[in-house]
């Protein structure tokens, strides 16, 4: 077991000279540079989004006043005379997102509590993949479902309306779409709460429900609220379900049984039509898009902030 003399033996490490100074090796900096460029693509994307929206929005507001846009109650860009009040679209978006939230947030949270505090392992191994499958269903499929099942079989018989399109049928399905999101993020928050807190409560004689309600959920609250915000943001940005099932005419109302048009559905409608580039009507989709972007951005930023605060405490 001698150390083989470097001089004898056919196979060895390449001989090394004296301890050298840094060679001007181009390989390492090149790799570093290429990878940095990849990371910068994300920054460029954000700039591009903001620049694109901004450019057309500014051009739009040269012709239409902010007051009319945010204050007007009729949205008829393709009439003469045109009217550019975005409130009907905004109301449509908020109505659907609100109803969807009403439906999905409690169910999602309860599902999360069930998964983290109650469900035995075998049930979890069934339910979680199922929720993932639900989350992976393309929204156009959900839109079809809303149009061909929820509307004729649930909403119309239940409420006796004859309208094919309604905010309610779209909201229910938007809610279904969002349940897995709420459930998985809330569950992450709940499981991040340390066992010690639960054990302490159990040791005092609390029931499982009480521990969940009074100890775990409050401890995970900021994480749960973050998941709610992300879900609402997602509902606001949803396009295909509302384009198929909610309606195609702007309608300022709070009646869920009426047809409404959301901001996203409007943008799709214009794209499907023959709008000339550079026209004011074309610019409307960017103005509406900018509004949409800012709304979701604010919700996402607050949600990220809450999540980071939550992680600070528990991780």
């Amino acid at each position, binding site marked *: 077991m001698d150390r083989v003399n470097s001089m004898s033996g*056919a*196979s060895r490490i390449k001989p*090394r000279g004296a301890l050298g*100074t840094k060679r001007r090796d181009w390989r390492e900096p090149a790799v570093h540079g290429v990878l940095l460029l990849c990371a910068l693509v994300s920054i460029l994307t954000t700039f591009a989004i903001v620049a694109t929206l901004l450019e057309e929005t500014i051009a739009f507001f040269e012709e239409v006043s902010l007051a009319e846009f945010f204050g007007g109650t009729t949205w008829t860009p393709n009439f003469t005379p045109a009217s550019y009040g975005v409130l009907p679209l905004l109301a449509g978006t908020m109505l659907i997102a609100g109803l969807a939230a009403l439906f999905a947030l409690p169910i999602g949270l309860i599902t999360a509590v069930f998964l983290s505090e109650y469900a035995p392992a075998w049930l979890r191994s069934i339910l979680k993949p199922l929720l993932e499958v639900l989350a992976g269903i393309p929204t156009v499929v959900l839109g079809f479902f809303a149009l061909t099942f929820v509307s004729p079989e649930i909403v119309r018989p239940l409420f006796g309306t004859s309208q094919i399109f309604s905010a309610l049928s779209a909201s229910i399905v938007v809610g279904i779409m969002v349940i897995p999101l709420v459930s998985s993020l809330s569950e992450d928050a709940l499981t991040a709460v340390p066992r010690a807190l639960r054990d302490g409560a159990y040791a005092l004689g609390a029931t499982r429900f009480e521990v969940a309600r009074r100890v775990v959920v409050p401890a995970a609250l900021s994480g749960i609220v973050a998941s709610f915000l992300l879900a609402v943001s997602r509902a606001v940005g949803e396009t295909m379900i509302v384009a198929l099932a909610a309606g195609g005419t702007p309608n300022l109302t709070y009646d869920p049984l009426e047809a409404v048009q959301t901001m996203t559905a409007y943008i799709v409608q214009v794209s499907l039509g023959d709008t000339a580039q550079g026209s004011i009507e074309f610019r409307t989709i960017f103005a509406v898009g900018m509004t949409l972007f800012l709304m979701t951005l604010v919700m996402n930023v607050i949600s990220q902030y809450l999540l980071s605060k939550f992680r600070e405490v528990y991780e």
Partner: protein
Amino acid sequence: MIRENLARVVESRDLVTPSEPQTQVDRQNREDVAEPFVEAIDLSVFYGAFQALKNVHLQVPSTEITAIIGPSGCGKSTLIRCFNRMNDSIPGFRAEGQVLFRGRDIYARGIDVVDVRRRIGMVFQKPNPFPKSIYENVAFGPRINGYEGRLQEIVERALRQAALWDEVKDKLKQSALALSGGQQQRLCIARALAIEPDLILMDEPCSALDPVATLKIEDLMRELARDYTIIIVTHNMQQAARVSDSTAVMMMSESRAGELIEFAPTKEVFTNPRNKQTEDYITGRFG
């Protein structure tokens, strides 16, 4: 009582293994010693504002085993990791002073740290083989360092030197993670040997292993010391007494910076230490 036991360990070791002439040399007078293989000169280490090592002078003789002992937190790991600049990646790390390796300061400006690490092998506290085959683990070093001849030969030689060849020669393609803890650590030693290092650093190599595996590795160390210079950090004084030729003792000063308080042949450190703190430590009064 403890000190007597340690003294007995050292003496019995000398009886069993033929002691080379070098160990007889009186190390009290450092000027007599041949040029040290690697040397820390006035080395101080800072992590941000916190000073981890203070003014360490250490001359490590070649082809011997030098042990660094001391209580937890006294900077042993920090010191040994300075020898191959593994501390560089820790944020806030700053070194003052010099570490001479073959006469050149490895902390000098412009020195290629990859080049430094290619000449020095390191074995870690917890065995950390790559999640690849046994062959691939040992082959990785020669591959990236460049080799001549046949890789198979280099791998076999390294595994033989690490006393692992017979146990794995039929299963070189199997995953390294399937080996036992002791085998994995010997694999890590083989991996380090494959790059034909000039110096081998071992940071508490046996602390995660059972006593049987530990003894195997200590035997291996003494075999390797015939041809390699080895520095080992250990919190186990008996191990240092069993295995090393020279021992460096470190202590935490009041400012919580680590200091080298004594460096002498192992026999002297454990039978007749010069520093009172050393004596207190080896007799178990603290630490």
